[in-house]
């Protein structure tokens, strides 16, 4: 298998070309946007929460590279039914395992942008914690 096929495996390209849960929810219980200024990836995420702050519906919109859009699409499938607290605590590796592709540090930022935006949305709406490595200045989301 070539390097291309490793990175852009079929499932990734499928999520990129036909993103799941695409489109923003209105109204929504939680929402946020973020960008990766290095490459211009942009993601907005909206969420509807049910009992126990459990994610009932999630919708996203964005533009950017295949990795960032496919990863966010896969993420939306992954988090449905989880509580806000569970998502806040979700390690990025859970998403990366799902992606199942080798990522260099630069591409890693693309892959986890959507997850960061989702955590930010829940933080703003429900006060769930933000990842520690963001530091104290994570008012808005930037993954650099």
């Amino acid at each position: 298998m070539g390097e291309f096929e490793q990175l852009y495996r079929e499932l990734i390209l499928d999520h990129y070309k036909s993103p799941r849960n695409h489109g923003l929810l209105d109204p929504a219980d939680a929402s946020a946007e973020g960008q990766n200024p290095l490459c211009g990836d942009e993601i907005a995420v909206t969420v509807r929460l049910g009992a126990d702050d459990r994610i009932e519906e999630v919708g996203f919109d964005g533009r950017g590279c295949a990795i960032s859009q496919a990863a966010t699409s896969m993420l939306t499938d992954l988090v449905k039914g989880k509580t806000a607290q569970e998502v806040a605590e979700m390690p990025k590796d859970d998403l990366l395992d799902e992606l199942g592709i080798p990522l260099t540090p630069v591409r890693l930022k693309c892959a986890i942008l959507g997850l960061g935006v989702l955590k930010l949305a829940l933080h703003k709406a429900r006060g769930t914690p933000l990842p520690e490595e963001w530091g104290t200045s994570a008012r808005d989301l930037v993954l650099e």
Partner: protein
Amino acid sequence: MSREYDADVAVTAKTTLDAQRLRADFPIFEQTFHGKPLAFLDSAASSQKPRQMLEAMTHFYETSYANVHRGVYQLAERATEALELSREKVRALLNAPSAREVIFVRNATEGINLVAYAWGLSNLGPGDLVVVTELEHHSNFVPWQYIAHRTGAGFRMIPLDDHGQLRLDELDSIAREGNVKVVATGVVSNSLGTMNPVDRLAAWAHEHGAIMVADGAQSAPHMKMDVQALGCDFVAISAHKMCGPSGVGALWGKAELLERMEPFLTGGHMIRSVGVDDSTWGELPHKFEAGTAPMAEAVGFGAAIDYLTEIGFDAIERYEHELAAYALDKLAELPWVTSYGPPADRRAGIVSFNVDGVHPHDVAQVLDFEGIAIRAGHHCCQPLMRKLGVAATNRASFYLYTIPDEIDRLVDGLHKVRKAFG
């Protein structure tokens, strides 16, 4: 933006500059990437380094290293001479009147900040205007915006027309909005390759009593610069884009202005005397060079200038024009590629483009698998990206070691991109 270019320009590399031979000076090309030879098409971000330059630095460290200026002993004298010789080489590179006017900095960005702080903090205030261009690199945009905000001065942008050229017809209306005190422009745009009419902007700036600051980061590597002919007051350049090391650049400024300015960084070396109540500043250029200089880097910069001068800036410029024309020609054959910027005869060796429906990051990634290095992103030009209506572009940029075969490989790679994402 148009896809026009001058198709008549053929690639006749041999007659001007032998890129294939020069490549042998660059050790980086001895490796393969992903099993393929390296097609390095990102020289506008930073150029690769010739052996001659690397050896000059190592030689300096091995035979002549000591802290400069203060030592009486022979090593310190040698180091000082080497540093000052490099200063003279930068002077000659820019055709500056005096080496006293050449200040070593880390990079062009620091040079511009130096002027923004040291001149701006004391000379700008409400009612004044700082004017930059819409295609400015962030490094010649944000420092001015920041100092304007700090001092209460206004901040304006000269807009672009649809060909990526500055709309000089807007100048009058800008001047009506306040006292133009600073005009800052790049000589060559790092995104579009556009060559700006710096001399005309300088004339306009001086008409209004403003200082003219030129960002030469993208022109100095590629063409003969003459700060006197440009009519600027300050010019900033970076060594790393022109076969020199990282960690050093130069700011040239007119002595009359530099002498009247407050210092920027203060500390060791830049002082005349230090007292509890007050300190006084040293002479040019020392007044602006606080602390231990990037000594070996300056020596490497000097060696890079020697290397480029021997090849000849005219030959380099002509060769890059040819490469740009060839690349634009090839890209024009791909209907699913949009390229940006002016015609080939009015641009340096930089080509920005997008592949329909494919994000630049993915384009660059697929090309990397083919051993081709290009840049994808906003190229530190977010205002320009907004103007173009895109989040990012792909940029291929050329230098004296670029061969037409690499452009052919780029085009082949784009076909692969198209196939994968089409």
